[in-house]
C-alpha cells in the first residue's frame, strides 16, 4: 500500500486533503472524527475536506494539527463490515432506461437485473442530496454514459448507473443518470438517529423484487 502522503490545500475555512489511494478515504475519515475542531468532515472519492471555524483556530494551525494527526501512520484499511441489502424492482416504468443500458452492456434487458444483483457495490460517498449514495461496483463495466439530456424528475429510490458507478436517488429531483430500477426503501429519514440509510464504506447488495413486493414495501415505508 502507498504511503499516506496527503496533499493539503487550505481554502479559507476548509482544507482539502488529497489522498494517493481512494481506499484510504474511510480510514482517514475515521482518524479525523476523533478530533473536535472540525465542524464538517466530508469524504470525496479520493479526498476528504474538513471545515473549521477561523475565529477559533487559524488556518495554519488547523493544517498543522491535521498534518500531526495524519503523520507517519498510513491508516489501516478499515472497511465497514456493514452489509446493506437493497431491494430493487427492475420492471417497466420503474426502469425507464433499461433498454439503453442493456444495449451498452450487450445483453438482453431481461438479463440486466441478475447482472446487477450479482455484483458487490461499495458506498464511495454520499452527496448531491441528503442520503444520495454513490456506489462503486466490484466489476469493470462497459462505458455507460450519462443521458444526453437530464430528466426534469427522477423519482426517489431510483437506481442509476454510469460506468462502474451506481447511484441511489434519495429524493425526487432532476437527474442525468440512466435509471434501471427503483427501491422502495427510504434513503434519508431525518427523524431517525442515523438519518442516512447508507454510509461511506458500506457494502451494498441489490436484491431483485417484483412490482407487487415493491408496492407492498413502499406502503410499509410510508406508515
Amino acid at each position: 500500500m502507498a504511503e499516506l502522503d496527503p496533499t493539503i490545500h487550505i481554502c479559507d475555512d476548509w482544507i482539502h486533503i488529497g489522498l494517493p489511494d481512494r481506499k484510504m478515504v474511510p480510514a482517514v475519515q475515521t482518524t479525523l472524527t476523533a478530533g473536535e475542531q472540525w465542524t464538517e468532515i466530508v469524504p470525496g472519492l479520493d479526498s476528504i475536506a474538513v471545515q473549521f471555524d477561523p475565529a477559533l483556530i487559524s488556518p495554519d494551525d488547523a493544517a498543522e494539527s491535521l498534518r500531526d494527526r495524519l503523520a507517519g501512520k498510513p491508516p489501516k484499511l478499515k472497511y465497514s463490515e456493514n452489509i446493506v441489502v437493497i431491494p430493487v424492482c427492475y420492471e417497466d416504468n420503474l426502469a425507464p432506461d433499461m433498454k439503453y443500458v442493456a444495449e451498452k452492456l450487450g445483453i438482453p434487458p431481461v438479463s440486466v437485473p441478475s447482472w446487477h444483483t450479482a455484483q458487490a457495490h461499495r458506498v464511495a460517498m454520499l452527496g448531491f442530496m441528503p442520503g444520495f449514495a454513490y456506489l462503486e461496483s466490484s466489476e469493470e463495466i462497459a462505458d455507460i454514459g450519462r443521458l444526453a439530456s437530464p430528466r426534469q424528475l427522477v423519482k426517489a429510490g431510483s437506481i442509476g448507473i454510469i460506468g462502474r458507478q451506481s447511484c441511489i436517488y434519495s429524493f425526487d429531483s432532476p437527474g442525468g443518470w440512466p435509471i434501471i430500477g427503483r427501491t422502495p426503501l427510504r434513503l434519508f429519514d431525518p427523524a431517525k438517529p442515523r438519518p442516512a440509510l447508507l454510509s461511506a464504506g458500506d457494502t451494498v447488495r441489490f436484491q431483485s423484487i417484483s412490482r407487487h413486493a415493491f408496492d407492498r414495501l413502499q406502503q410499509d415505508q410510508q406508515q
Partner: protein
Amino acid sequence: MSIEILNAGLQTTLQGAPFTGHRHLGMPAAGAADCLSLALANFLVGKPQGAVAVEITLTKAAFGFRAPCSIGVVGPAEYIRINGQDRPRHETLTLAAGDTLDIGPGRPGCRTYLALSADLEADSLLGGQSTYLAAGLGGFHGRALRDGDIIPLSRPALPQNLAGSTPSGLRPHYSDDHVLRITPGPEAGKASDEILKNLCLRPYSVGARASRMGIALEGALLRMGQSSDMPSAAVFPGTIQLPPSGQPYLLGPDAQTTGGYPRIAQVIRADRHLIGQLAPGSRIQFVETTTERATDIYREKLALLSSWLGQIKLW
C-alpha cells in the same frame, strides 16, 4: 396565534441557522443566505442570531398578524408599511392583532429578513429549522410560502426592553455592486497560472440562473489548462466551480455537498453573507487574498459586530 401570508412574493421561506455537521450525509447548509442581515433582524426582537425568521427574495410580500408581535426588518426592502403607514427599517416595530405588514421589493440587493419576537412554528430536523427546498425538508412543510398560508406562532407575549435601533455604522449597505474576496481553490494550481488573474481582472455579473443553490456568473470565460475531469470532492457555500463551459459557478447556501467540477476559488467567510444579496444583474469584482489575511478580516469583522450583537459568528 398566527400570521397569514397575504402575498408570498417570488420566494419566501423560513430560514435561520444552517445545518452543520451533516455534510458527509449529503445534507447541505441551507439557512439564511445573508446571515448578517438575519442576525441584525433577530437582535431587534431579542432573538439569538440563528433563530428562524422569514427570508423574502427580490419582490414585495405582505403578512397579516393575528397576534400582537414585535418585529425587526433588515434588508434592502424599499419600504415597510404597517396598515399602509411607512415605518423604518432597522428598528424594533410593534404590531397589534389585525395589523397588516407590507414589505417592499428588495432593490438594490436581493433578500430581506423579517424577524418576530414570537416563535414561528417550523419543522425541526438535524438540530435546525431552516428550509432546504430541494429535498422538501424543514421550515414550513419544506417549501416556500404561498398566499393564504397560516404560520402558527408560539410565545406571542410582547417582550420588553428590545434593542430599538441598529446603530447606523452597522447597517449594511445594499448595492448592485459587490467586492468578494477569494482564496485559491484546490484545483486552481492545476489550472493555468492565469486563471485566478482572469477571474479577478474584470467584474462578472449575476446571470438569470441564480438561486439559493448557486449562481452562474457572466463575463470572461475561463479555461482549465488541462482536462477538467476530476473525481467528485467536497464543495461548500462560496466555492467557485469551473464547469467545462468556462462560465464560473458560485455556490450558495443550498449547494450540494460534493461536486465534480474543478474548484478554482473560495469566497472568504467574512464576505460570504454578501452572496445572499446577489440578484440577477448584480456585478461582482473578485479580489484574491491569502488565507492569513482572510482570517484577519473575518476576526476584525466579528469584533466590530460583537460591539452590538455580542458573541456572533458568520457562516
